[in-house]
C-alpha cells in the first residue's frame, strides 16, 4: 500500500519535472543561461584545480602584463596581471566562488526569513500582519544600496556583513510575494478541506499552502540571486564589502581602479565576469518565469 | 449586384502544431436590407469569417477566397489604407463583450466622436451634437449627461448601446453583430436585439447576426447560415429551416430548443466541435451525428442544394404553423 502511493507520487513528481523541462527548454536562451551558469559553478568548485596560479601569488617582475593576445602579453598570464603581478584569470576564477556563495547566502537568508514572515502575515492577519508589513514598507522606503551601506556602517565592512545587509534589503519582496500568494491560496477549497481534516496551522502553512506558492518565489529567488551578485560587487567596489586581498569581483575592480587608464584589462575582465554571470542567471530566470507562470505560458 | 459577395472564403491559422483551418470554403451573399444569421456552437468559425472580412485577424491568419467584394469594391486586392476607409464607415462590427470592448481610458464622447472624425473629418469636438443624437437613437436616456462617462461607469447593456452608437455613427451599409447579447442579462438581450432590428430598418442597412442561440435567430433573421467546424452545413430562409431542417446538425440544434423538445428532457448534442488535432475522417459531424453511416466516416460530403451532407433529411411539405406557434 505504502509503496504504491510512493511510486505514484514519484511519477507525478517526475511528470511535473518533465512538463517543467518541456516549457523551460522551449527557450534556447534560458537553456544557454543555465549551461553557462553550470559552467561558472563548476569553475567555482574546481577553482583550485583550474586556475593556473594562486590568486594571491605575486609575480613582482611581471606587474601589469597585458592579456596574451595583446602586444607584450604572455600565455602564462592569459588575461594579464595586476599592479602586484597577480594573475587576473586566477583571481577572477577564484572570485566566482565568492560571488556565487555570496549570492546563494543572500537568497537563502532573505528568502527563508521573508517566506516565514510572509506566511505568518498572510496566515495570522490582524495586528501582526500590520506590523510586519509596515516594517517591510519602511525597509522599502530606503533605496536598497543605501540601506545596505548604513547597515554595513553599523556592522563594519566585510563580505559577511555585506551579505547580511543585502539580505535584509531583499527580504520585503519575499514577504510581500508570500503574503499575497498565501492570501489567494487561503480561500481555496483544498485549504478548507485540510482545515476540516484537522490540520494544524504549522501543517497548513508549510505542507498545504507553501508548496502552492512556490512558483513566483522561485522566480523571485533567481532574480534576487543575480541582483545579490551585483550588489555584493557594488559594495565591494565602494570598499564596504569584501576587503582588499580577497579576489571578489567588485573588489578587484576597486583595487585596480587607479590602473584603469594604463592597464584597462585589470578593470575590464572582472566587470565582464560579473556581467556574464548576472546575464546568465537573468536569462535563466526569464525562462523559469515563462515555464512556471501558467498565465504567461505559450499556447 | 449584391452588397456583399463572399465566395469560398477560407481562413487558416499558423500554429505550433501546424496549420489550423478555422473557416473552410464559406460563401455568403447579402443585399441591402437583409438580415442574415450565422449560427453554430463556439469553435465553429462564425466570428473568424466576419473578422476576416473586417481585416481584423492577426498576422498568423492566411485568408484565401475566390471572391470577396463589398459594394462593388474588391476587398481581396485593396491595400490596408483603402480597407480602413471602409471599415468603421460602411462595414462595422459590434462585439460580444461590451464591457471589455470599450476602451477604459476614454469617455463615451471621445470614443464615438473619434470614429466620426476619422471618417468625416473635422475635430472630435465638432461632432458633439451628432454624438448626442446617436446616443438618443440607441435609447440612452439623458444622453448629454452620459457624454463624459467612462466605460466602467456603465452597465453591460448600456455599454453595448454605446458600442452600437459608435458602430452606426457613420451609417454603415452593413453591420455585423458578433453575439451582441450573449454577455447580457436576458431582459436586456431582447431590448438590444429589438434595437438592432429597428436600426436596421430605419437605416436600411444589411445586418449579419452571429449567434449560437436559435431562439435569437427565429426572432430576428430572414436567412440562416448554419456553420459547423468552419464549414457551412446549411444555408436557407429562416422559416423553411425551422420547419424542415435538412442537415442533421441543424436538426440537432433545433431539438436542443425547449419549443422543439419531443420528450420531457432537452436534447443536448453529445460531444464537442472537433479541434485542430481531433478532426475525424469523412464528414466532420459524423462522430456526433445520429444518422451517420459508413460513407459519412470515410468520405467528406459534397454540397448539394446548399446542404453539406451525404444523407440530407427529406424535404417536408411546406407548412409554417410550427414556427409561428413557437414564436
Amino acid at each position, binding site marked *: 500500500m505504502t509503496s504504491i502511493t510512493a511510486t505514484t507520487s514519484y511519477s507525478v513528481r517526475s511528470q511535473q519535472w518533465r512538463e517543467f523541462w518541456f516549457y523551460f527548454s522551449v527557450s534556447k536562451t534560458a537553456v544557454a543561461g543555465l549551461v553557462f551558469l553550470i559552467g561558472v559553478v563548476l569553475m567555482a568548485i574546481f577553482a583550485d584545480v583550474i586556475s593556473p596560479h594562486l590568486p594571491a601569488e605575486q609575480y613582482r617582475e611581471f606587474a601589469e602584463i597585458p592579456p596574451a593576445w595583446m602586444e607584450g602579453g604572455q600565455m602564462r598570464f592569459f588575461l594579464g596581471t595586476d599592479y602586484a603581478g597577480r594573475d587576473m584569470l586566477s583571481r577572477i576564477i577564484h572570485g566566482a566562488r565568492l560571488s556565487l556563495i555570496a549570492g546563494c547566502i543572500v537568497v537563502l537568508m532573505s528568502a527563508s526569513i521573508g517566506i516565514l514572515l510572509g506566511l505568518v502575515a498572510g496566515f495570522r492577519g490582524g495586528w501582526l500582519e500590520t506590523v510586519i508589513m*509596515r516594517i517591510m514598507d519602511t525597509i522599502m522606503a530606503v533605496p536598497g544600496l543605501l540601506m545596505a551601506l*548604513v547597515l554595513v556602517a553599523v556592522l563594519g565592512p566585510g563580505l559577511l556583513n555585506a551579505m547580511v545587509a543585502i539580505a535584509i534589503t531583499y527580504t520585503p519582496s519575499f514577504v510581500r510575494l508570500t503574503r499575497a500568494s498565501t492570501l489567494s491560496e487561503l480561500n481555496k477549497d483544498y485549504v478548507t478541506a485540510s482545515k476540516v481534516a484537522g490540520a494544524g496551522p504549522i501543517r497548513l502553512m508549510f505542507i498545504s499552502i507553501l508548496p502552492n506558492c512556490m512558483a513566483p518565489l522561485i522566480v523571485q529567488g533567481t532574480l534576487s540571486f543575480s541582483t545579490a551578485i*551585483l550588489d555584493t560587487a*557594488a559594495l565591494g567596489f565602494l570598499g564596504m564589502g569584501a576587503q582588499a586581498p580577497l579576489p571578489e569581483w567588485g573588489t578587484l575592480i576597486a583595487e585596480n581602479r587607479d590602473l*584603469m587608464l594604463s592597464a*584597462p584589462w585589470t*578593470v575590464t575582465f572582472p*566587470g565582464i565576469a560579473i*556581467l556574464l554571470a548576472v546575464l546568465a542567471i537573468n536569462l535563466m530566470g526569464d525562462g523559469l518565469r515563462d515555464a512556471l507562470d501558467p498565465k504567461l505560458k505559450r499556447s | 449586384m449584391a452588397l456583399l459577395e463572399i465566395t469560398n472564403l477560407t481562413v487558416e491559422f499558423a500554429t505550433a502544431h501546424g496549420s489550423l483551418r478555422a473557416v473552410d470554403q464559406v460563401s455568403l451573399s447579402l443585399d441591402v436590407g437583409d438580415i442574415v444569421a450565422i449560427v453554430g456552437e463556439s469553435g465553429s468559425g462564425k466570428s473568424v469569417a466576419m473578422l476576416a472580412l473586417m481585416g481584423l485577424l492577426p498576422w498568423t491568419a492566411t485568408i484565401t477566397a475566390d471572391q470577396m467584394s463589398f459594394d462593388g469594391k474588391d476587398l481581396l486586392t485593396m491595400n490596408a489604407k483603402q480597407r480602413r476607409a471602409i471599415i468603421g464607415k460602411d462595414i462595422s462590427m459590434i462585439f460580444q463583450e461590451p464591457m471589455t470592448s470599450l476602451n477604459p*481610458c476614454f469617455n463615451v464622447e471621445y470614443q464615438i466622436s473619434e470614429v466620426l472624425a476619422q471618417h468625416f473629418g473635422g475635430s472630435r469636438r465638432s461632432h458633439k451634437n451628432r454624438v448626442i443624437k446617436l446616443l438618443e437613437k440607441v435609447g440612452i436616456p439623458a444622453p448629454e449627461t452620459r457624454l463624459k462617462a467612462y466605460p466602467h461607469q456603465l452597465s453591460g447593456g448600456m455599454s453595448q448601446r454605446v458600442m452600437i452608437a459608435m458602430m452606426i455613427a457613420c451609417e454603415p451599409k452593413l453591420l455585423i453583430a458578433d453575439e451582441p447579447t450573449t454577455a447580457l442579462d436576458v431582459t436586456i438581450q431582447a431590448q438590444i436585439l429589438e434595437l438592432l432590428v429597428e436600426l436596421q430598418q430605419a437605416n436600411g442597412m444589411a445586418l449579419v447576426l452571429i449567434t449560437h442561440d436559435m431562439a435569437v435567430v427565429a426572432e430576428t433573421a430572414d436567412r440562416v447560415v448554419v456553420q459547423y467546424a468552419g464549414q457551412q452545413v446549411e444555408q436557407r430562409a429562416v422559416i423553411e429551416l425551422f420547419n424542415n431542417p435538412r442537415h442533421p446538425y441543424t436538426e440537432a440544434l433545433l431539438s436542443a430548443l425547449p419549443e422543439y423538445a419531443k420528450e420531457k428532457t432537452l436534447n443536448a448534442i453529445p460531444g464537442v466541435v472537433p479541434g485542430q488535432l481531433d478532426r475525424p475522417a469523412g464528414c466532420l459531424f459524423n462522430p456526433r451525428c445520429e444518422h451517420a453511416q459508413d460513407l459519412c466516416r470515410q468520405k467528406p460530403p459534397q454540397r448539394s442544394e446548399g446542404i453539406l451532407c451525404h444523407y440530407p433529411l427529406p424535404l417536408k411539405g411546406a407548412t409554417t404553423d410550427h414556427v409561428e406557434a413557437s414564436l
Partner: protein
Amino acid sequence: MFKFLFKRLLVLVPVFFGVTLVAFGFIRALPGDPIEVLAGERGVSPERHAELMAQLGLDEPLWQQYFSYVGDVLQGDLGTSLITNRPVAEEFFELFPATAELAICAMLFAIILGIPAGIIAAVKRGTLVDQGIMSLSLAGYSMPIFWWGLLLIILFSNTLHLTPVSGRLSFLFEVEHVTGFMLIDSLFSDEEGAFKSALHHLVLPTIVLGTIPLAVIARQTRSAMLEVLSEDYVRTAKAKGLSPLRVIAVHALRNAMITVTTVIGLQVAVLLAGAILTETIFSWPGIGKWIIFSVFSRDYYAVQGGLLLIAGCVMVVNLTVDLLYGLINPRIVH
C-alpha cells in the same frame, strides 16, 4: 480622488515613523554610545562624557529620546555634521540639486528611449528587432553600473576624448549657483560655452545612471503593450478604421501607461541607489557622493540625516506617482 490620496497619505504615516526609528536606531546600534560616536577617535574623559550625556538628553529613557528626536525632525532639525559643523539638512539641500539634475536627466533618458523601444518590440513581436531590443535590455539590467561607468570613461573620455572624466563643469567657468541645476544656471550665466560644458559633463553620468531604468522600462513597456494589444478594445479601435499608429499610440499606449507609470515610480529608488555609485565614479558633487564620504569619515549624524531625507524623497516621489497614476487611470478619478 481625494479619498484615494488621503488613503495613500495615511499609509505613509507608519512608514515615516518606521524610517525615523531606523535612523534613530542607527546611531544607537553603532559600536560605542552616541557620545563616543560624536567624539570619534579623540576619545572623551568620563566627566565630560557624563556632562554631554545630560546636555544632549541621553540620560533620559530611550522612548523619550526617540520622541524628542522625532520632534526635532518634524521641526526640520536633523542634527549637525561632525565634520563641517553645519546643519545636516542645509548640507543636504545644497547638494540635492546636483543629484536631482542627474537623476532627472537619467530618468528622461530612460523614458524617452525605453518607452518607444518597448512599444516597437511589442508591435514587432518575435522579429529580429524585438529580439535585439530585448537582448540589449537584458544586458542593460545585468550591468554592474560602476563598471559600466569606468568602461565608458575609458572609451569616451580617454580614447576618443569626447567627454570629460568628472565633475559638473569645466573649471574654466565660474557660474553662480541660483537654482543649483547646472544646466539652467549655466544657460543664464554670461559665461559663453558654460552650458555646453555642463551638458558635456552630464552625458556619461546620465547614460550610466539611466541604463538600468532604461532596460527595465523597455521590458515592462513591451509586456504591458503585449497584454493591452490583445484586449478587446484594441480590436474595437481597429474596427473603427483607425490607422495602426493611432490604435497603438492612443488606444493601446494610454492603457499600457497605467502599468508603466508604476514601474517608472519604482525606478526612482533604484535611481537614488545608483546615484551613490555613479556620483562616486564621476566625482559628481551630489547626495550620493556625500553619503559615501560621510560613511567613510564616520560622520554618522550626516548619514542619519541623509538616510531620513532620501527616504523622504522616495516617499514624496511615490506619492506623486500615485497621484499621476490616479490621473491616468479613470477608474480612480471617478
